């Protein structure tokens, strides 16, 4: 990001009262302040275009670092569930939840299995009744299969 070509100058109240002259100092301060703002807003191009100049890429404005790998710890994760609910799944059917992080609990009569879509096929865990716990769902390639003879009910919290 190019530095501003003009320094910012604070204009004092005494320079703009009724008796103050419209002198070179005041006019220069006003001009320089506008130039300073222009530099702040337009970066290296120095021109206004229809495009947004500030995308924080480190060139037209200060770079904003992305979240580094392993930077998000448990303390930074919102522990309040975004939603809670339950889903009934008939025997032999599946539920593909919307994208999100879910905490699942099965009802006592449920026999659900988690499935992921890999290589063009759904792959299922080999232990019925094992979906309880935290699961990540992308809304398309992760789902819950109900193998319970009476159908299944899954209770969930999303985060």
């Amino acid at each position, binding site marked *: 990001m190019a530095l501003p070509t003009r320094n910012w100058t604070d204009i004092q109240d005494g320079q703009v009262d009724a008796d103050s002259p419209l002198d070179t100092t005041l006019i220069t301060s006003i001009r320089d302040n506008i130039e300073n703002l222009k530099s702040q807003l337009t970066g290296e191009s120095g021109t206004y275009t229809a495009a947004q100049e500030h995308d924080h890429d480190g060139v037209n404005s200060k770079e904003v670092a992305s979240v580094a790998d392993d930077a998000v710890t448990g303390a930074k994760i919102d522990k309040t569930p975004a*939603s809670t609910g339950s*889903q*009934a*799944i*008939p*025997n*032999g*059917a*599946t*539920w*593909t*939840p*919307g994208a999100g992080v879910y905490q699942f609990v099965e009802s006592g009569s449920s026999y659900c299995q988690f499935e992921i*879509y890999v290589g063009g096929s*759904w792959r299922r865990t080999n232990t019925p009744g094992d979906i309880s716990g935290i699961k990540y769902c992308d*809304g*398309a*390639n992760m789902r819950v299969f*109900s193998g319970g*003879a*009476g*159908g*299944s009910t899954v209770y969930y919290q999303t985060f």
Partner: protein
Amino acid sequence: MIIDRKRPEFSDVPESLEGEVLLERIYGPDGEVAGFVTASLEAVRSMKTKSAEELSAEGWARYRDILDTTE
């Protein structure tokens, strides 16, 4: 109805569910689609052979219309 993503009514269904029978769309608090309940065609055909009591016991009672209209 069997999911055929080339049809506009299934444009919101993920590719991974292509060819399955759509039983129900799940809607989130915001009214947007937030999931799907589906079954394989084999599972649907299996359920079509069951009595009303069995369907109710296995959680299929609410999908009776879908069973009736699926070949």
